């Protein structure tokens, strides 16, 4: 696991998200109304919608294209939909956001 600084907490709008380009692909960094951060691949399991542009509420993101709901802890789509998106660890140190990427992955 390798950790990368992404920027300041206030650069991710609460209730929404931003994306980052990484060697592991485009990753959505999402923030709920309480300020909790999540990171998942920025591709909806339905038809690849950018999750960074969706609504975030609690631990759910609503995909902006067709409104699939995805649990940000597990990456699983909520029923009745089925599908999964990969999750990544994020943490904050002071105001800085850090994203954890698997070490050896290209």
């Amino acid at each position: 696991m390798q950790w990368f600084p992404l920027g300041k907490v206030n650069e991710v709008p609460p209730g929404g998200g931003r994306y980052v380009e990484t060697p592991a692909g485009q990753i959505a960094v999402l923030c709920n109304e309480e300020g909790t951060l999540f990171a998942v691949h920025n591709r909806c399991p339905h038809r690849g919608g950018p999750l960074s542009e969706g609504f975030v509420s609690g631990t759910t993101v609503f995909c902006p294209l067709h409104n699939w709901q995805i649990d940000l802890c597990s990456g699983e789509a909520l029923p009745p939909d089925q599908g999964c998106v990969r999750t990544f660890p994020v943490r904050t140190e002071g105001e800085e956001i850090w994203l954890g990427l698997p070490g050896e992955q290209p």
Partner: protein
Amino acid sequence: MGNRARKARLVVVGNGMAGIRTVEELLRMAPDLYEITVFGDEPHPNYNRILLTPVLAGEMRMEETILNDYDWYAGHGITLCTGSPVVQIDRVHRRVITASGETAPYDRLLLATGAAAAMAPIPGNDLPGVYSYRDMRDVEALTQVSTGGGGAVIIGAGLLGLEVAHGLNARGMQVTVVHRRAWPLDRQLDGRGGAMLQEAMEARGIRFLMERESAAVLGEGRVEGLRFQDGSSIPARIVVMTVGIRPRTGLAQTAGVACEQGILVNDTLQTYDPRIYAVGECVQHRGMTYGLVAPLFEQAKVAANHLAEYGRMRYEGSVTSTKLKVTGIELFSAGDFRGGDNTEELTLLDAHQGIYKKVVLQEHRIKGILLYGDTSIGPWLFEHLREETDISALRDHLLFGETHLGDAGHAGANQVARLPDTAEICGCNGISKGQIISAIRDGLFTLEEVRKCTKASASCGSCTGLVEQLLASTLGGVYGSSARKKALCGCTDYSHQEVRDAIQQERLLSVREVFRFLDWRNPGGCAGCRPAVNYYVRTAWPAEGYDDASARFINERAHANIQKDGTYSVIPRIYGGVTTPAELKRIAEVAERHAVPMVKFTGGQRLDLLGVPKEKLPAIWAELGMPSGHAYGKALRTVKSCVGQEFCRFGVQDSTRLAIDLEKNLERMWAPHKVKLAASGCPRNCAESTVKDFGVIGVDSGWEIYIGGNGGMKVRAADLLTRVKSEAEVILVAKAFLQMYREEAQYLERTAPWVERVGMARIRERVVEDPVQREELAARLDFAILQERDPWAEAVAGRLDIHAAPLRRVSA
């Protein structure tokens, strides 16, 4: 505060549909408030009583009707005592006492004892072989006795009587239905419909004896027959009595809780004793008792709201509809279809196809509905009945339904009953009829629940009517489709209007304040309520209200339309569709410089640059130097125009100039949904003004103004609002009309359905006939638009951040 340590105790008497629904609603609102104990007379967990007939007919198994299994109670920490009737309420010590002498103390008590089958008061009504039809025990007994075959006589041809007749017929018994009136379902049908129904059931082998008053059940030691008052009699092996239901009020009555027909409750479902609430068939509210699930579930919601100590909702009574759930017989009725003074009837009879439709009107509103043979338009008509829609404009096709005017892509699919189980109902999500029915039978009752569970009707919504028909035919009525009573979304029980009222009265200035003040179940809301509430805040408080970007759909946050691959499209404003060579050149150069993958003329008379990555948006906007066309927003879109007087040989008015003026006056206007305008220079109407939200047509003497047109999923021709002389008047009326729409329509409701809902008369009254209101409405719109800036210019100037670029690029 000492005793706050222990939870309050809620005791529920009656483990049936209304009682447990209330508990479910309560748990959603306040999961930890109470320690809950439920007493039930029957030996089962809560099951779906509506499905007793499919069980009797052998189409379903008993276990499949369970709505809440034992694990559900345990999982929510609810103590369930089945087979344990409560026999006394000790109001002084606040406890209930069961038949076996157990006691349970309460802080709040909920009575949901339902109703009991009434027995005909005739000699022999207690002989072995006489049955009632109310609960699982009855179904078990009837199932067993039916294996011996023979003759079954049903007394009473109401809904239950016909259902049990169908069930026993399916079990191979010879069924005769006896009724004191001249036709079956006399409370749901008129004579003609009744005759058609009787014929259809006779064709299945069920006999009817009408206008017979039962006198005595015959038999020595067990049923042998039934004698009538005229002295005649028929033999019978069993007799089933379905002559009505009686609210079970005995328990409340002995405890001194006021009762008449049912237990008396106020609009909060509270009884005469403030600690005791009551819901369901046992209740009498504003003089009415109800025997269908839909109103009971509305009661459950309100009772739960008060038990949860929110205290904001009121139950104001329900309008119900009924649907016979006998496979192959299509029948729907609601309201007062008998008519009378000051009413008119619209009828349609096709005896050959077995179709009969009747709608009773009073002062342009629907009062009663009776449909036989083809009930596809039932839910649609019922909605107009409940909404008290002014149907003047729909009158010509009322009996054919909304699909009549052309429901794009769905022609012919309105006969849901005749479709096979594999037929696709929801075209967006590929959900079949069979999938929806089996989901409903698993315990869904409302459109919202079906949407959530199956996705059917959850996308473009054009199959909503079909899904409602499936709900009606599976559950025997129309559930929760009324816009007026409907909760804004799953995060709250408050309706759109209740939320708007709170924003206005309590001066709530942001989405977050609204969520907090109204105790949203989900502090972050969802994709349904966030944009809606943000819109309501902004319309109520255009200057002070906070426009929350995180509550805007992505398109309105990015100020561009997101595409399937995550890129965006850019459509600048081209006022009235009129451009210049210089402007065209600039657009062409920008497209070329940024290698825009496609440039397209839109259906709205302007140019679209498609496939632009988000990162490039601000640069493209800067280089275009044109304002946003809002092609992405619930906002003013285009004002289409035709050539008009200036060049066209037929033109009698300057439609291009008016279109440009309208667009300049209204641009940046947000609305409940998108708003499209058009101006045509003569009645040839080349700008298609009659399928626009607001359209004008030039005539020699001035302008004709049309409203409520739509050309999208459901074509609707606009209605003539008024005629005016000058362009200034057109602009004033446009502003007044659109502001009224902004203030009154529900979020995501376009003008077409809204105009149908409120009726032309009310709109005309406010925006045409009353000059004061018209000016005030227009002034409020001007003020609201004044608060808005062009978003593209704002972004270019660095005052608006659309987060175009990624947060960071991480390299390995």
